[in-house]
């Protein structure tokens, strides 16, 4: 018998890819948020626009961006693949299934939360990325942000999608470490603390942007 598997044709290998791309995307969340915090600098968007200009023109950034798109694509494709495989493994459902007695809702809904994040991603790129980076329209990114966040429906969608991203990471972040076999008593605590940054603090950071600009619009600051 000589059964050999590789990373792509084994279920565990594909989970490694999910975990690796997932953590890579987490690193992007940190960078994206820290740059966007310039939105809160009270200078009418000068600093933010300069930052945006830098991100749009720097060759290194544009190269990393390709990797980011590849990471998203791989995470989404392998996520869908896993989900299909996992459904196939249970062709007949249970009449009664008290799954909540033995596992968390977040752990059972990663595909659903991920899919909503994906829809969000499309909307988000369509608002900010397509006009400036693809169509090459010359405009202030800050003005674009201010304009987009005036719409309360758009803002509500934002808040919900980001909250669900947080929920995705409520399970996903620690899960990636289990996937890579990092689970000793000494790591478990540390991972759970760092996870808190990703599933709670970073989402709050992102959510504060539409909320702030909506508030600014309604109260006439902008």
């Amino acid at each position, binding site marked *: *018998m000589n*059964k*050999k*598997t*590789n*990373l792509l*044709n*084994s*279920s*565990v*290998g*594909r*989970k*490694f890819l999910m975990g690796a791309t997932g953590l890579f995307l987490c690193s992007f969340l940190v960078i994206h948020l820290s740059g966007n915090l310039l939105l809160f600098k009270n200078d009418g968007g000068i600093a933010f626009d300069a930052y945006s200009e830098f991100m749009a023109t720097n060759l290194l950034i544009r190269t990393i961006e390709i990797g980011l798109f590849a990471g998203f694509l791989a995470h989404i494709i392998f996520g869908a693949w*896993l989900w299909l*495989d*996992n*459904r*196939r*493994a*249970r*062709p*007949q*459902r*249970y*009449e*009664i*299934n*008290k*799954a909540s*007695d*033995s*596992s*968390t809702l977040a*752990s*059972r809904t*990663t595909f659903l939360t991920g899919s909503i994040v994906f829809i969000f991603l499309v909307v988000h790129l369509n608002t900010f990325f397509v006009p400036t980076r693809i169509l090459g329209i010359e405009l202030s990114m800050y003005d674009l942000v201010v304009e987009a966040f005036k719409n309360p429906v758009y803002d509500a969608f934002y808040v919900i999608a980001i909250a669900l991203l947080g929920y995705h990471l409520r*399970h996903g972040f*620690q*899960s990636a470490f*289990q*996937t*890579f*076999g*990092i*689970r000793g008593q000494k790591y478990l605590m540390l991972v759970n603390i760092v996870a808190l940054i990703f599933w709670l603090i970073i989402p709050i950071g992102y959510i504060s942007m539409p909320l702030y600009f909506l508030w600014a619009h309604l109260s006439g600051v902008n």
Partner: protein
Amino acid sequence: MNFILKAWRQKNGNDKGMFVAYSAHDISPDASFLEMLDVLNDELVKKGEEPIAFDHDCREGICGSCGLMINGRAHGPQRGIATCELRMRSFKDGSSIVVEPWRAAAFPVIKDLVVDRSSFDRIMEAGGFISVKTGGSPDANAIPIPKSISEEAMDAAACIGCGACVAACKNSSAMLFVGAKVSHLALLPQGRSERTERVEHMIAQMDEEGFGGCSNTYACEAECPKEISVVHIARLNREYLRAKLV
């Protein structure tokens, strides 16, 4: 005690199957779940009906034969026990109980509540062993093994192969079972020499049998009658990563 039992009836693998309601009377609170089924089956036989087929052997939680999905929980509502150890006093008198077989593509139903778990056997054949010359029994302490390591290996070795981990997992994943087997052998010096091929072959077989992947929901650990920890799944992942890197 009295119960309304809604049991899955299915003539064979090709039959569609359906739930049939039965009433079980005068059941002792100290009866095990399987003894309750025995009482009910006696009655069915007397009436000339086909008894409900279910797997069992040791009836003391060590063989892994029994295994039923009871009210949506693998091995019933209590933790850390097999179906044969579940007592009827755990249920409310007069309540209705839904009993289903394990559901997984890799565990096809043979009849009623009996599923075919030979997929587990094939995973074991693929690598769940050590190749040694059997001869005279070796000296007990010829190979020194630290206590903590032997304890952890023994924890993994407690797996009785019941399949509750698969049954409870939303993906019908066998990672806790395979994790327990791989971990048990990888921890001990006797199992070390074949660790690379073992993890490769067992995972390849696991995938071939049609078990799902692990989403780390940890439902398996919660439902395992031997309370095997998902730490062993982490070790399985490590062993696999190592096999890919060396």
